[in-house]
């Protein structure tokens, strides 16, 4: 079986006119998990969003070896962020089947798309099958979260990008989720998770991010410009 390998080299990214990531390098392959750690505001979420193709990188390269050639990294990935992407006026089942039908599945590097769960199987796995015909607006925060997880189960994609995956989940649901993530890893998937809390996952690597001191060149804050502004001062002062 072919192996997937996500290689990230020298990635930098700007958000809000500020450099939040610089020189990020890592490799993570099939059946591996990468846990992204670091203090608040260090760019954990930004890194996941760069991989998901939602935020443009300023420098560096991000490549998936062994993936489908014509597809980007983002198109191999599931992104599980803070927002649940649910429409409160549609039923739980409508919400889930929309994403199941809409998302393009991706193979795990072996050239064939895997079978995925049906909507009801996924809801059962997560213990919310009784809500299937209710509008999603009636769900509690934890249930919404679980419905959001169900999306990852109904469309096969090898890379899971998880941003604080256990937030708003109780102990039992967290166990279920961790079990699902572990299953995904064991099935040859790739997991990249940003988290504060320790996650008990097999085959784990850690990536520690630290605050960036370089400025975005878009903000004209570089060293060479200092010379200009200093000269300016000497002339005028």
């Amino acid at each position, binding site marked *: 079986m072919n192996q997937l390998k996500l290689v990230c080299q020298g990635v930098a990214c700007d958000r809000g006119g500020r450099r939040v990531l610089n020189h990020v390098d890592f490799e993570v392959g099939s059946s591996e998990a990468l846990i992204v750690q670091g203090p608040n505001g260090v760019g954990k979420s930004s890194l996941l969003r760069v991989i998901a193709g*939602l935020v443009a990188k300023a420098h560096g390269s991000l490549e998936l070896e062994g993936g489908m050639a014509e597809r980007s990294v983002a*198109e191999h990935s599931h992104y599980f962020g803070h*927002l*649940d*992407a649910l429409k409160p006026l*549609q039923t739980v089942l409508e919400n889930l089947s929309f*994403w199941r*039908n809409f*998302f*393009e599945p991706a193979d795990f590097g072996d050239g064939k798309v895997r079978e995925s769960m049906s909507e009801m199987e996924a809801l059962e796995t997560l213990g919310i099958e009784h809500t299937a015909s209710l509008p999603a607006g009636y769900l509690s925060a934890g249930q919404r979260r679980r419905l959001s997880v169900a999306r990852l189960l109904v469309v096969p994609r090898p890379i899971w990008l998880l941003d604080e995956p256990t937030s708003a989940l109780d102990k039992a649901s967290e166990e279920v989720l961790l079990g699902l993530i572990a299953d995904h890893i064991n099935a040859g998937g790739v997991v990249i998770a940003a988290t504060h809390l320790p996650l008990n996952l097999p085959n784990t690597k850690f990536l520690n991010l630290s605050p960036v001191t370089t400025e975005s060149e878009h903000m004209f804050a570089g060293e060479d410009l200092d010379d200009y502004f200093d000269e300016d001062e000497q002339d005028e002062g």
Partner: protein
Amino acid sequence: MNWMKCLFVREYQLANRVGGGALIGVLFFLAVVTIFPFGVGPDMILLSRIGAAILWIGALLATLLGLDRLFQADREDGSLELLVMSGRSLELVVLIKCAAHWAATGLPLVLATPVLSLFVGLDFQSIVLVTLTLLVGAPALTLVGAVGAGVTVSMRRGGVLLSILVIPLAIPILIFGVSAATAGAIDSNNFLVPFLFLCALTLFGLVVGPLAAAAALRVSGD
């Protein structure tokens, strides 16, 4: 089910379920058309002369009304992120969303036009022409509106700015739409030229609208 059909159905359902759906746009259209006679006086001859323009401006304003939510709702609940990384062409996604939006809000306006035409004293031929030009031109309004909606997607109160940005883009559509409707009523030879220009603008909007809106949505990713 085909993903395009799936997206269309969902967008259409949501547009109809949220905030009164089609009805609210038609009501606004009715309100705009109603205030014109109060402004210019109940002179049926004058009204029938400017009737086509009133209906077109009413339709333009009613189209602009709901456009700010076109992508904003998706951005707020996180759906937009998933649409971007779904592996589907974002341009096509935008086009389908526009189509659904048009079907849910633009089409009812077109259907209401013959009825509202009676209030401004249009004769039968004019009613047909106005309805026909709106049927062809309203999609173009939605498509240029989508560019404005994409550009203002990250703004909390982007509705007014959207209108300011979109109205200049809508001027050519209005010119050819109203010209075709009014000129055609007098002399059918004058109808074809502006009408074909209107068709051209709609086709042009079909290309430029999704391209520009999708580019704006990609930029607004963070």
